[in-house]
């Protein structure tokens, strides 16, 4: 995902501020919580992004929703966004924050697609191998895709490790076509 300059800059200062206050873990939890709230309520997202709703109204709605649920750091940050008239970008900033935090902490998110659910052993093996290969802490998320027939496909950033049966069949097909197989 690509973020605008504004989102990157604000997310950066948000992270630095949380770090200075020693409250990175709390803030990270806040971010996850807000993103979840927004996900659960499309109206809220629409309100925040809407150019028609006045910024002051947005702030009061947000404060009402968030008070007591998030830390003081986050509350202050939301107020600050209101002051700077950047409340529209809140959700993008929060997304940028999650990515930024991963980068700063050397964590890489990775997606494993497999045809059947992974066993604990397989999961451990994959994780182990990925961490050795990329020399970074890896957080796995899993999904099931029966389209790949068998095996698995791991996505880490821009790199794809494709060990699916589907890909192997494609390779075989390519090889047979390119070899100029003829019956004469």
């Amino acid at each position, binding site marked *: 995902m*690509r973020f605008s300059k504004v989102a990157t800059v604000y997310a950066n200062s948000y992270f630095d501020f949380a770090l200075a206050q020693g409250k990175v873990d709390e803030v990270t939890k806040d971010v996850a919580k807000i993103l979840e709230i927004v996900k659960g309520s499309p109206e809220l997202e629409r309100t925040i992004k809407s150019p028609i709703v006045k910024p002051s109204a947005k702030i009061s709605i947000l404060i009402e929703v968030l008070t007591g649920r998030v830390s003081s750091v986050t509350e202050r940050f939301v107020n600050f966004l209101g002051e700077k008239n950047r409340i529209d970008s809140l959700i993008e900033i929060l997304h940028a924050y999650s990515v930024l935090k991963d980068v700063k902490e050397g964590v890489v998110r990775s997606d494993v697609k497999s045809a059947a659910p992974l066993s604990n052993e397989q999961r451990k093996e994959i994780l182990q191998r990925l961490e050795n290969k990329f020399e970074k802490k890896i957080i796995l998320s899993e999904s099931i895709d029966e389209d790949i027939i068998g095996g698995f496909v791991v996505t880490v950033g*821009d790199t794809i*490790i*494709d060990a699916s049966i589907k890909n*192997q069949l494609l*390779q075989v097909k390519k090889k047979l076509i390119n*070899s*100029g197989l003829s*019956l004469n």
Partner: protein
Amino acid sequence: MVEIKPDEISAIIRKQLSGYSGEADVYEVGTVLQVGDGIARIYGLTRVMASELVEFPNGVFGMVLNLEEDSVGCVLFGESKLVKEGDTVKRTGKVTSIPVGDAMLGRVITPLGAPLDGKGPINTTKTLPIERKALGVIQRHPVKEPLQTGITAIDSMIPIGRGQRELIIGDRQTGKTAVALDAIVNQKYTHTAEAKALGIEPVYCIYVAIGQKSSTVAQVVAKLRDYGAMEYTTVITASASDPAPLQFIAPYSGATLGEYFRDNGKHALVVYDDLSKQAAAYRELSLLLRRPPGREAYPGDVFYVHSRLLERASKLSAELGGGSLTAFPIIETQQGDVSAYIPTNVISITDGQIYLEPNLFNAGVRPAINVGISVSRVGGSAQIKAMRKVAGSLKLDLAQYRELEAFAKFGSDLDASTTKTLSRGARLVELLKQGQYAPVPVEKQVISVFLGINGLMDVLAVDEVKKFEKEFHEFAEQKYPEMYKSIRESKQLSDETSSLIKKAADEFLSIFKKS
């Protein structure tokens, strides 16, 4: 329908698959953000290299040209309709390259090396990147061997050496391609056993057609085949209907193929027909990639596009095998305007130019070379001694003729010496006329020019000159073959040979007049 047993098929498939090992594929990908007009912007591909080949779905390939902060700009070598926003792009890990090898000779290929002539796959083992750095000073040797074009006017007054870059410039329909094709056809003699005995090494040719009509290219290929020149020639074509990126890279592919021969100690001649269209294709790309336009809307680095291409022409030092790569770039001017942006650029890069004029062409002087402003900056040292001896006075006589040409209108009122200069000049111009695909070997050129400058043809009418020349050679080859042999082998024009030519001319003149 031939009957095939099922177990035969499975045996073949088993054989084909025997080398297959099902390992995991590791590749890097990006996502297409925007596509159109032959350009794609891609998000991702974080480690991609500049000018790397990337693969889109549906077998479309692209080349990375712009590396930006948050996206990668890429040109497509195929239909942009086949690529959509959100498609996955794969890295190939290879810089755009072309397969090279002797198997390329006689073939018609795309700038990426795929065959176009329906003669099946090309068996090459080696590939080289299309963009290579030109050689430095140490690796080079001054140009010393002649590259005979077979055109008397060029070989005598604008001599070209192996490793030189000689521009062919002129308006449309002035015979630019004809000059280049004649030069290719004339290289046939370098592949003969006779040339080998004389120490003349073979020249392999590459004809790069950029932005031309496919029908024109087909005609060129047919002509080359008719004259037996395809055996040592490769034609690379990016026709007018091909995407601009292919037209842009075509000359670089040609240079790479030529460098393969050069680096193996052989000699190559590359014709870029033509670089004005390549510059236009590059302008299209640059504007679509949003690079700022400069003069005539060409991007700022259009000079570098041509200079880095032509700088690759070179003559290698003896330690490196002594191979050479000669370049014939062609530029089309509009209404004779050589001071436009691209012509001035290429004129300043090359080691001289052959200037073709529509006026001369229409007056029947073909090849329509304006010898007054055509020059060759290095070729003189590559001329054989015999030719150098006669070319000096040929140039002088023609220069004097041009000076006085304006007075020719006054006819009878001229003094004797002016009349003489004029009549000599008119005969020399006539002598330098030459048909297409009729290359003349150097010894015949020397003798013809010798006849001209020594006034042995002054007694003839102007329209008899060509006929006399032709018949004289027929006569002399029968009766005095030793004078041809002497020039061919010693590369000198000795006094005995000179007097022999004079004697033969006098003898033939009397026969010629009677008939």
